[in-house]
């Protein structure tokens, strides 16, 4: 009794002050692997020494109608630069730019090869199950140039004999509608998953505009997002696996004017049509895993204003072999063969890019200490990119305490985007790759009590990354009307990330708390001219501090989530003279699941911006005040033993 009481007090202390995690030293490492329900750790390593974080899928389920940018802003240390509800949202990992983060769908890049980045507001959460984030140098085994990291959207098969049908409908403020349908059917050997999502919003939220000194409705911000995906999973004799995936999405996004432009007559619309397809085969041997993958991504994008159209085809192929036949050593070599083909109004003629990448991971496992060596050699358009190496180690010094120390060093290069090279008049074909020297160190700790009703995990990471020859668009000397990209910037990004999650089963219910904190100093290190006042100053739109916390309570099929986000001030000038003030947001999700035989009916109410904060994240881009979303969900499940 006293023990339990103390326990909870300690928990609260933890939650409030992030006190060190060594108090729970009587824990048993092995408890995590006990039979029964699965206890998932979210703080992981990709390879020993290289950081990987998983966003718990339980956090995604209540937010099926949300987009990826919302989820990352609420549940990760990634800063999302959002131009407003449904508008452009780009990630910044560890003080890098959006083009330094690769977004993947089951391992294949879905960044636009033209821009080198991706709009996260166009990715519906309902289309994937898990989010894996490979931080910084962990990306080397996947791709070159992702200095910030890789965000991988994962869909995994469920090999149960089942029929699962899901229909969800959301009605939300500002004439916002969202429909999700999911059909999963299959058995031990074959599974089919079909997902359909359609969402539309008028998005005409009211806001106070200083320019007119009045409340007005947001103009030209309507959008629609639609998508359908089909996945087929085949398993033959537990040795051969075949996966085929197809995902088509069609988005129409109107681009609202900034709040000062009240008399602006522009009616900009961006249209995106994306078809992603992939086939993946896997052969599981005793000491071997062979993976073969081919994927085609067809992206079409148009802007009505300048009647510009861009068609991109990306063909990506991968062969990867995992071999663990030698004592203590596993060896994972592979080859990527990628080809991009672009037909764009913005370029003179068609442009292509071929990329052949050879990579290998060596893992040397000495139980308490593990080493990883990663190499990558990219050959882009026949030219050798500099060699990319990474070295890391993981240390788990104790048998009874589940704590590990991880560290790595790496060097990485990023090849310019196609726009940087080929944009008509402005592009610069003489650009050379950007360079990153990075190191990171982390401590990961987790604890599950013997009775399995208390779980805690914590993670702290420090990183240091020096990026040189960064590509920046600047006016051409002597001609300020023409801007062109050049390898002129240097950035030093260093900081810390803290993750702290716990759950506790108590009073026939469950309390869980998920927290992420990021400290990020990302500064400009090189003057562009003698007058440049940016040296040593924080990059624009990157907060030094950001924090998010989610408190979830569950009991009797009722659930309540309180999601809190804090973002510190972000500078809007490279001289750090102007800034957007810090703000914090609160969201609330409240719902109930009702079991009716084989159907679960869920009712859910979500309140965003609970305190009705009048805020902007980007200069003069209004954000909605308090708003509501109501969701009704039917989930039919007929499952038979295999």
């Amino acid at each position: 009794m006293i023990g339990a009481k103390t326990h909870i007090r300690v928990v609260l202390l933890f939650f409030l002050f992030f006190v060190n995690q060594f108090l729970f030293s009587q824990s048993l490492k092995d408890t995590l692997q006990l039979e029964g329900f699965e206890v998932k750790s979210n703080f992981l390593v990709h390879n020993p020494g290289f950081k990987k974080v998983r966003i718990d899928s339980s956090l995604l389920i209540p937010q099926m109608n949300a987009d990826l940018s919302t989820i990352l802003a609420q549940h990760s240390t990634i800063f999302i630069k959002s131009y407003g509800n449904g508008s452009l949202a780009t990630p910044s990992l560890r003080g890098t730019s959006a083009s330094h983060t690769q977004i993947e769908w089951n391992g294949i890049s879905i960044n636009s090869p033209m821009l080198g980045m991706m709009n996260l507001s166009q990715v519906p959460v309902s289309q994937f199950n898990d989010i894996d984030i490979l931080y910084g140098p962990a990306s080397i085994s996947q791709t070159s140039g992702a200095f910030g990291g890789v965000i991988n959207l994962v869909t995994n098969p469920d090999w149960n004999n089942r029929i699962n049908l899901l229909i969800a409908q959301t009605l939300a403020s500002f004439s916002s509608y969202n429909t999700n349908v999911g059909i999963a059917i299959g058995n031990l050997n074959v599974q089919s998953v079909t997902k359909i999502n359609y969402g539309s919003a008028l998005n005409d939220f009211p806001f106070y505009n200083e320019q007119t000194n009045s409340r007005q409705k947001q103009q030209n911000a309507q959008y629609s997002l639609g998508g359908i995906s089909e996945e087929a999973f085949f398993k033959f004799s537990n040795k051969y696996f075949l996966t085929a995936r197809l995902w088509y999405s069609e988005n129409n996004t109107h681009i609202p004017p900034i709040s000062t432009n009240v008399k602006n007559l522009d009616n900009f619309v961006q249209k995106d049509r994306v078809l992603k397809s992939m086939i993946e085969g896997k052969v599981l041997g005793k000491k071997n895993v062979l993976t073969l993958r081919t994927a085609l991504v067809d992206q079409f994008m148009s802007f009505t204003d300048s009647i510009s159209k861009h068609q991109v085809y990306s063909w990506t192929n991968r062969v990867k072999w995992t071999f663990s036949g030698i004592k203590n050593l596993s060896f994972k070599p592979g080859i990527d063969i990628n080809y991009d083909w672009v037909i764009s109004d913005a370029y003179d003629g068609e442009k292509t890019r071929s990329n052949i990448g050879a990579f290998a991971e060596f893992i040397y496992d000495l139980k308490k200490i593990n080493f990883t060596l990663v190499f990558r050699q990219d050959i882009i358009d026949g030219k050798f990119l500099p060699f990319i190496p990474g070295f890391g180690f993981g240390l788990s010094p104790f048998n009874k305490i589940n704590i590990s120390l991880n560290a790595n060093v790496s060097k990485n290069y990023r090849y310019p985007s196609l726009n940087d090279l080929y944009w008509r008049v402005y592009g610069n074909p003489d650009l050379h790759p950007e360079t990153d020297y990075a190191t990171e160190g982390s401590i990961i700790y987790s604890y599950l009590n013997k009775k399995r009703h208390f779980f805690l995990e914590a993670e702290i990471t420090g990183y240091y990354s020096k990026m040189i020859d960064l590509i920046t668009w600047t006016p051409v000397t002597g001609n300020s009307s023409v801007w062109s990209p050049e390898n002129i910037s240097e950035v030093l990004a260093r900081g810390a990330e803290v993750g702290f999650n716990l759950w506790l089963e108590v009073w026939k219910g469950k309390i869980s708390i998920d927290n992420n904190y990021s400290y990020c100093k990302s500064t400009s290190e090189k003057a562009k001219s003698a007058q440049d006042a940016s040296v040593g100053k924080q990059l624009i739109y990157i907060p030094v501090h950001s924090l998010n916390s989610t408190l979830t309570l569950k009991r009797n099929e009722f659930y309540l989530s309180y999601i809190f986000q804090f973002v510190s001030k972000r500078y809007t000038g490279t001289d750090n003279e102007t800034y957007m003030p810090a703000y914090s947001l609160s969201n609330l999700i409240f719902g109930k699941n009702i079991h009716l035989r084989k159907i679960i009916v869920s009712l859910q109410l979500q309140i965003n911006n609970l305190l009705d904060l009048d805020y902007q994240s980007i200069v003069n881009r209004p954000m909605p005040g308090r708003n509501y979303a109501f969701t009704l969900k039917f989930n039919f499940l007929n499952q038979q033993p295999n």
Partner: protein
Amino acid sequence: MYIKTKKFTISRIHTYLLVFLKGLFFLAILVMAFSCSKKPIRESKETPALPPLDSFSNGVFVVNEGNFNWGNASVSFINLSDNTVDADLFEPINHRSLGDVAQSMNISGNQGYIVVNNSNKIEIVSLKDFSSVKSLSGFNSPRDIAFVTSDKAYVTNLLGDIMVINLHTMEIKEIIKTSCWTEQMVKFGNLIFVAAIGKYDDPNSKRNAKVLIINSLTDQIIDSIKTGKEPLGMVIDRKEKVWVLCTGGYDNYEAPSLIRIDPLLLIVEKSFPFPNVKDAPSRLCINGTGDTLYFLKNGIFQMPVTALTLSSQPLIPSQGRLFYGLGINPANGNIFASDAVDYVQNGLVYQFSSSTGQLIHSYEVGRIPGSFCFSNASVKN
């Protein structure tokens, strides 16, 4: 025994509940601490600007474009009596941003007319305290304003048409139709010469670059003169010759040229082609006495109106500075050039001596200083 167990359970529940409520309480405090401010979250300055104290009698207004689609345009004032700067005149007194991409400013009587391009408006301010008199809309991406008579002004636009403004009612009185992107204007008697680039959406190969001639009595386009591509700058000299600076096209379509037009005969008298197709001259200016031309081409170039060739060396080399805007003090001929640095920080203005080109003073102004408006410049009516 049974009762005892029950008691135990209840007290346990109580404890949990209490602790939980305490937790919620702390959480609430946390939330309050972060978000009790009801002040709207808007862009702020580390050193907020204050409304100006002195008059604008002797100095220069610096029009800071601000970043495209950021809505952070501003106007700074350099007091030339004591070299002090009011970094931001508009926002502190009007409590709102000037708008998005301020292009130019001109003075008529005791009012300033600020052309705010991407906000599609002209902000009319009192030169007493810079308070807004009227925000005039209805343009097609306005570029420049010229006062034709004491009663009316013309406004050129990126996306076609020239608006005629009644200066008494401060309203658009009439629209002179043209599909051309129009820029700077000069006055010659009753004629207004308007630099016209061609249709904005067309590539330079399709654009017919010219100078439009408008009869200001009838507000009719009466003639035009063909020029090189992108005639962005235009001035009139003391001999009443009209000078037009053609950039040759942002895409280096052809070599730039400086041309001289005889406004009586309506012919191009003389053309000074630039040697290199990649040369990018800009910001054609003339001094108060109308005998010397200035323009930017990396450095600052000076050219007497009587010169027979273009000067090959700048009067003031750039020396690592990125000159962006140019203005000549009509009172003493001193040269004002702006430097936008990296375009995402406060810009600078340099004042150089007219005779020697020596740096006299430099000033920190707002974001992307693009054009100048001298408060002592009398409106030529």
